[in-house]
């Protein structure tokens, strides 16, 4: 420490007599070089104190004189903080002819960290990245598994529901088949066929239900009988189909050994849950007592016409 520095130090510690103190102050108020030197000496001394680099004698003076003031103690606190910050790692030396001017945020971040701090930061960042990736992967896998489980559960429920519905339909079909078989048996054995005749003599419509029996026969046993009363104005013929394989049907009614009475083209079958049938209504005036043959032909998707069935029935008039 030079004599001049010693004097400046004494000033900083308040150890100069008032006259010398004033002289120095006048000088540094008018000479910025002296002022800057004084400021830098103070900074160097504070930093040396913070780093424990002052001689015991100087340290003693420093603590006694300099640290008596709260503003100066704050300067020491700042120096300690700066020391901690700097000790965390060495800054890259500036060796280029210009100061590095980083443009990206990454470069700025990188420059703000140094040495060990940078290494630690990169390690932490890498670890964080790995943990994040693993967490994301697990989350995706978990979501997929949950989705699969939900799908399987949904499929099981649907299958069970479908099985229940199928069983129910099967049971309904069996019951209907039994009922129809019973009706058919009854129709064949009864004279006149009870299900086909109008129940009431006062009805204006007479109905006859015929089961489609195929083209090779007109049905075993006696032909169904249709009774037409005086009041009957319309006759409704209903053909129940065992199968429905055609896009349309042609229906021809003719008296046995006589002329064609009724011809209807491109009839559409009526399909319900219980059966499939064709229904036509014919004026009663066209039908005389006697035997009749009802011929059903089917229209295929290719436009071909095929015979489906022939039904024989007997008409009586009262």
């Amino acid at each position, binding site marked *: 420490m030079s004599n001049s520095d010693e004097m400046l130090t004494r000033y900083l510690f308040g150890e100069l007599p008032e006259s010398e103190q004033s002289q120095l102050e006048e000088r540094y108020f008018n000479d910025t070089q002296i002022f800057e030197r004084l400021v830098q000496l103070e900074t160097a001394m504070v930093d040396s104190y913070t780093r424990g680099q002052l001689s015991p004698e100087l340290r003693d003076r420093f603590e006694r004189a300099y640290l008596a003031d709260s503003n100066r103690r704050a300067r020491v606190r700042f120096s300690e903080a700066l020391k*901690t910050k700097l000790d965390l790692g060495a800054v890259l030396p500036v060796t280029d002819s210009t100061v590095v001017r980083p443009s990206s945020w990454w470069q700025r971040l990188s420059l703000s960290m140094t040495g060990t701090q940078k290494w630690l930061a990169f390690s932490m960042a890498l670890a964080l990245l790995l943990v994040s990736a693993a967490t994301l992967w697990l989350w995706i896998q978990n979501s997929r598994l949950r989705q699969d489980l939900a799908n399987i559960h949904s499929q099981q429920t649907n299958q069970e529901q479908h099985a229940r519905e199928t069983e129910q339909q099967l049971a309904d079909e069996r019951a209907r088949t039994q009922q129809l078989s019973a009706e058919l048996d009854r129709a064949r054995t009864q004279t006149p066929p009870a299900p086909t005749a109008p129940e009431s003599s006062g009805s204006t419509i007479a109905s006859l239900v015929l089961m489609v029996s195929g083209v090779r026969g007109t049905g075993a046993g006696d032909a169904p009988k249709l009774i037409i009363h005086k009041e009957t104005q319309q006759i409704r013929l209903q053909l129940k189909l065992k199968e429905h394989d055609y896009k349309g049907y042609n229906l021809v009614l003719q008296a046995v050994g006589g002329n064609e009475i009724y011809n209807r083209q491109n009839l559409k079958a009526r399909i319900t849950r219980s059966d499939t049938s064709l229904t036509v209504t014919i004026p009663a005036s066209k039908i005389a007592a006697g035997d009749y043959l009802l011929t059903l032909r089917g229209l295929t998707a290719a436009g071909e016409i095929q015979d489906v069935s022939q039904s024989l029935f007997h008409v009586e008039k009262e």
Partner: protein
Amino acid sequence: MTAALTSTAFARLLYCFDPDRDRAGEKYEDLRRTLIKFFEWRGTPFPEDHTDETFNRVARKLDEGIEIKNIGGYCYEVARLVCLEALKGNDRKCEPLETDYPDAAQADAERRLEHERYLHCLEQCLDKLSIESRTLVIEYYQDDKRDRIERRRALAESLGLQREALANRAQRLRDKLELCVTRCSNRKTAI
């Protein structure tokens, strides 16, 4: 009590430093820094307030028509008076406020907390500096004693500055940083 300067009075004060407004502004800032340090070294409690008070008084003298040839010297004379008044006032106010002094453990804990606070503020204040300024401060004040001279020489060379100019620039940046940190810490303490 320090009263704010009117814009007219401030303009007149600036003119006293230099007829050119930009140069006057620079000289005003230099003298303000000198005054703050002066009050600090003299141990007055509120260096910035006393500096403002000094400028106010000088401005009032200018209002009164007094011609000032050496603004630095005149300010110093006024500052001495302000300093004496402040120290007198401070002596009167220096009644002991606390009779219960904290024990060593408590003082140590408070010291650690204070250090954490300063570190936190330092990070914040460093972020406010430009990247060039931050790099310069950190590079210049590295404690690597063996390499310090060589590093500072290389730094001055890279910036195209004389060693003295580099030292002044680093010191000014440090002062700015220190002021920011001290204010930040005081705000946190107040909270």
